[in-house]
């Protein structure tokens, strides 16, 4: 009985949040509408790394590589062919998948801080390649490209507006959330969580732990790449700054702020972080070093509130 009530409550909560996010373009001024779209995109990046941090117990400092390759993959598709949404998505995801397969194969042999450092170094390798390969990637200046039309090939298409872009992002992020939630509740996700709780025992039971970890990193990389494609669609440029490891660090900050192991927590964390940044910028002026107070808040959360903002609801959200 409680299970049924839980699922009614969960889905009605989900529906309310979705409805609010759906109508928000009609209510919000253009700036905040754009801001909300951006929060959703960063939230997707943070959510993808939550699959590793919160469910598998591996902190990745290399998500900027997946995000950036999604971005540059989309850029390649939009610059080489006639701009098409499907091709941009496909190229971005393929780029992220190839990179994450490569990173996953090597880095999952290591645990804890060694995993964190290895993923960080891998993302820096891609950063250096993108930064120095000026002929193809545009180097420091990055790439500018047109936005494709929204639509299904051969059936229907129309140009993106800010509102339809918001809806498109919302649909992709919500879909990703449901898929990730399903993954974490599946037998596969249970094995990941048992790796987090006790790796030697999971191995002893007979699960091929390395293979599960590689799968987890690759899945996580795919969703991070998806976030990269969305960001490329929204901003119509790709720049090496987004491959730099500070972006991975921000994804980890979003996770810790919002609450790891909740999937929606990271989105809330991203929202809180970006909102605080925006407010600090408005109150103290554009040049205010907003990362100083945010850094202090982040450290305080680690010390005093390691569960994050949504940590109290963790069990409820994962049922």
């Amino acid at each position, binding site marked *: 009985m409680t299970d049924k009530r839980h699922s009614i409550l969960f889905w009605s909560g989900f529906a309310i949040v979705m409805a609010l996010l759906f109508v928000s373009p009609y209510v919000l001024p253009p700036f905040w509408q754009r801001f909300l779209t951006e929060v959703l995109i960063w939230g997707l990046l943070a959510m993808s790394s939550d699959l590793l941090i919160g469910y598998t117990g591996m902190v990745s400092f290399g998500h900027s590589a997946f995000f950036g390759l999604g971005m540059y993959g989309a850029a390649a598709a939009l610059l080489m062919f006639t701009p098409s949404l499907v091709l941009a998505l496909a190229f971005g995801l393929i780029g992220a998948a190839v990179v994450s397969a490569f990173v996953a194969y090597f880095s999952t042999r290591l645990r804890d801080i060694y995993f964190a450092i290895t993923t*960080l170094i891998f993302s820096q390798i891609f950063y250096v390649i993108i930064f120095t390969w000026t002929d193809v990637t545009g180097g420091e200046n990055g790439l500018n490209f047109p936005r494709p039309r929204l639509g299904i090939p051969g059936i229907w298409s129309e140009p993106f507006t800010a509102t339809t872009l918001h809806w498109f992002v919302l649909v992709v992020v919500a879909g990703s959330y449901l898929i990730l939630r399903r993954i974490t509740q599946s037998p596969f996700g249970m094995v990941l969580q048992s790796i987090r709780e006790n790796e030697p025992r999971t191995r002893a039971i007979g699960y091929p732990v390395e293979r599960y970890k590689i799968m987890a990193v690759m899945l996580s990389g795919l969703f991070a790449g998806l976030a990269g494609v969305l960001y490329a669609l929204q901003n119509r440029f790709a720049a090496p700054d987004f491959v730099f490891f500070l972006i991975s660090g921000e994804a*980890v900050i979003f996770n810790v702020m919002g609450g790891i192991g909740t999937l929606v927590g990271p989105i809330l964390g991203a929202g809180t972080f970006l909102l605080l940044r925006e407010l600090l910028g408005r109150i103290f002026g554009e040049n205010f070093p907003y990362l100083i107070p945010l850094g202090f808040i982040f450290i305080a959360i680690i010390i005093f509130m390691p569960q994050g903002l949504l940590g109290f609801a963790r069990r409820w959200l994962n049922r």
Partner: protein
Amino acid sequence: MGFLAAIPWDQVVIQTVNGIVTGMILALIASGLTLIFGIMDVVNFAHGELFMLGAYMGVVVFATSGNFWLALVLAVMMVAILGAAIQITTLRPLVGRDPLTTILATFGLSLILQNYALWQFGPVPRKIGEPISGHFNLFYLEYPYYRILIAVLSAGIIGAFWLFLKYGKYGIWIRATTQDRVMAQAMGIPVPLVHTAAFAIGAGMAAASGVLFGPLVGVNHVMGLDWVLKAFIVVVVGGMGNLGGAIGAAIFISLLEAYASLVVSPAQAVIVSFVVLIFTLLFRPTGLFVPTPK
């Protein structure tokens, strides 16, 4: 034997000297990092920022006093005090938690320190004057004596630190705490104080390398990022917590990068050290410069 003649030996010699000089600076940074990791399992993401702040302190003291040596000493002392304060406020509450939380906390610290430096000193690079200005001839280059002095001074600081660890009373405390924290506590060593002191020493060494390196390039707020990555690589390749290994790895990697920059651009030469790290992790995860565990 044709290919031997094709090698530009003069450039190789120059790059060897360059590699050893940067290797010694790197060794100075990495030995602080490996000390901190060895004693309290903290991967200090903010180490590059301590290096950068040391360089800025050097800039400030040098601008007011004009004396390089005073700048070196004062910068080391100020950053060491800052390091002790950081350890007490941020890392002490995290003792006993997952070591990963300390990575996150020190990452937060590095953001704070980096943006503080940008806010306080602005984006324009600052210079520290060289204390000695002579040159000597190395093939077609006029090689500054100061670069040699950096290597000698770094080696001197590392040597003094090694002697302190080996023979000093407090050095022995540090080694005892590294080996067995609980036992050291039981023998009456004030472990929390030793942790703070070790962090302060590591921070001071990073600051010293920052001041020494300052005259070679402009001091700016992101200079720590490159170095902390290299120092991570060195510490892992040398074996986490292994001081001798870190020094060996620092020189090894700097030499490799210096030789690689003969062929590709210096920005791409960094990839060589990344590749060394990956191979080390795959084939000798305990470190290149440690004896094979039996």
